[in-house]
């Protein structure tokens, strides 16, 4: 039994756990930020990323979660009937009332002996589900629990967020340590009531506090969680081969990484937002999958999510030998990013259901 220490806040289960399988999903379509700028600024405005991923007409968080979950299952090679929780974190669940998670659980063959629920905490709903899955497995309530972060993010036409609000995400299957591709040493959560971004019920698009989304929101929580976790596990940035942060754009995660003392070779691999945009609940987790696609046994990974409203979850991971045989079983994250079809603003408005007829 781990001694619970209220002063350092480290979340560590009694039984060691890790990632038994992982899978990414990025839809095929891309809209360049320059195309959005052409529409709203005559092409004169600066753009925060190169381009963002857009879901097709027949895709939503349920279908995208199913594909990521299938990739995680292929890598884990376990019987889906052994899963005891299927959790989907998103702010674009297809239904306001009716779980996405039961659709995913049904599609991967995990029903009916399983828990299922949808999670919500802006962009960190997926890592919340990961922490709960760690607890489920770490307490012995489940052998495996599936956590997914996936979004088809909403951006108001012409708003700054329209350049980045993207579609994609990842699934992470938590299991016992001895079956893990990466061990999870511990995690740490850091939250306050900070109104930097929200979407009211029945509103199509979110509202945000412009510059307020930086220092008191993203940086305070990301840096706070990262520093507290590293203190609790007694590590410094030099102990990590890789680091991945929530990526609402290209600039914020770079600044956060550098403020903490991480070098570009540690955070560039997981920094996907310049090429796929901000996949909201999927953002940090899909960055992790890109790292797992290339990491070596023994490598340590620091992962820090951020969700508006606001809070961060930080995780300390270490890659095991099992990753080497498992990762090639499913499509890599870069494989999905390479599958790219550029669309114009008109096609984008149709695919994103912005045309009201």
């Amino acid at each position, binding site marked *: 039994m781990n001694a619970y220490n209220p002063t350092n806040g480290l979340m560590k289960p009694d039984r060691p756990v890790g990632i038994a399988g992982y899978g990414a999903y990025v839809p*095929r379509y891309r809209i360049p930020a320059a195309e959005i700028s052409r529409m709203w600024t005559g092409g004169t405005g600066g753009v925060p990323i190169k381009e963002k991923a857009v879901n*097709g*007409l*027949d*895709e*939503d968080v*349920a*279908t995208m979660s*199913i*594909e990521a979950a299938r990739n995680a299952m292929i890598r884990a090679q376990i019987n889906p009937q052994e899963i005891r929780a299927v959790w989907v974190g998103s702010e674009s669940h*297809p*239904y306001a009332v009716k779980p996405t998670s039961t*659709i995913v659980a*049904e*599609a991967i*063959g995990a029903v009916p002996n399983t828990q299922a629920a949808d999670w919500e905490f802006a962009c960190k709903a997926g890592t919340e589900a990961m922490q709960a899955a760690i607890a489920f497995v770490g307490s012995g309530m489940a052998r495996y629990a599936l956590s997914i972060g996936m979004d088809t993010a909403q951006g108001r036409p012409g708003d700054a967020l329209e350049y980045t609000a993207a579609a994609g995400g990842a699934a992470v299957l938590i299991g016992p340590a001895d079956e893990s591709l990466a061990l999870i040493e511990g995690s740490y959560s850091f939250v306050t009531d900070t109104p930097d971004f929200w979407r009211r019920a029945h509103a199509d698009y979110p509202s945000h506090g412009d510059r307020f989304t930086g220092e008191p929101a993203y940086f305070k929580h990301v840096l706070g969680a990262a520093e507290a976790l590293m203190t609790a596990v007694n590590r410094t940035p030099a102990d990590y081969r890789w680091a991945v942060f929530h990526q609402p754009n290209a600039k914020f995660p770079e600044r956060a990484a550098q403020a903490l003392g991480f070098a570009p070779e540690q955070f560039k691999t997981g920094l996907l937002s310049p090429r796929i945009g901000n996949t909201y609940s999927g953002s940090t987790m899909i960055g992790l999958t890109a790292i797992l696609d290339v990491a070596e046994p023994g490598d340590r990974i620091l992962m820090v999510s951020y969700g508006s409203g606001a809070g961060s979850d930080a995780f300390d991971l270490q890659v095991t030998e099992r990753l080497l045989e498992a990762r090639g079983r499913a*499509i*890599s994250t870069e*494989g*999905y990013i*390479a*599958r790219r079809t550029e669309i114009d603003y008109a096609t984008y408005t149709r695919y994103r259901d912005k045309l009201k007829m």
Partner: protein
Amino acid sequence: MEVSRHWRLQAQRYQLVGETCDSCGVKLFPPRDVCLECEAPAQELYTFTGLGEIYSYTTIYDAPAGFEHNAPYMVALIKLEEGPLVTAQLTDMDPSEAQIGMPVEMVTRKLRTDGEEGMIVYGYKFRPAVKELTAV
């Protein structure tokens, strides 16, 4: 929309669950409980791999009710690896990309929605095999 009818077909729609014949081993999709080859009972469930190739295809411009939202879209006969021919939509591809014999894989997608307030129906479609693309 008939909610119960869609619900009954979920296993085959979401996962391509068909049946296999106990006596001659033929795989059946959709499930029909009797082997088409030897007429023996065939009730053992079998989940198809979802891999196959385009046997033939067409493009639908004048879509039936409930599918207008996606037009134009492609419909194909898919020859599954295990044998059966399945009619399904193609997705994630332009009509110019489709070819007879093209390797495809099953994905679960939205088939249709019942207006703004009705249920969303999910099921199988086929897309160009991504593994094939990344291997090149």
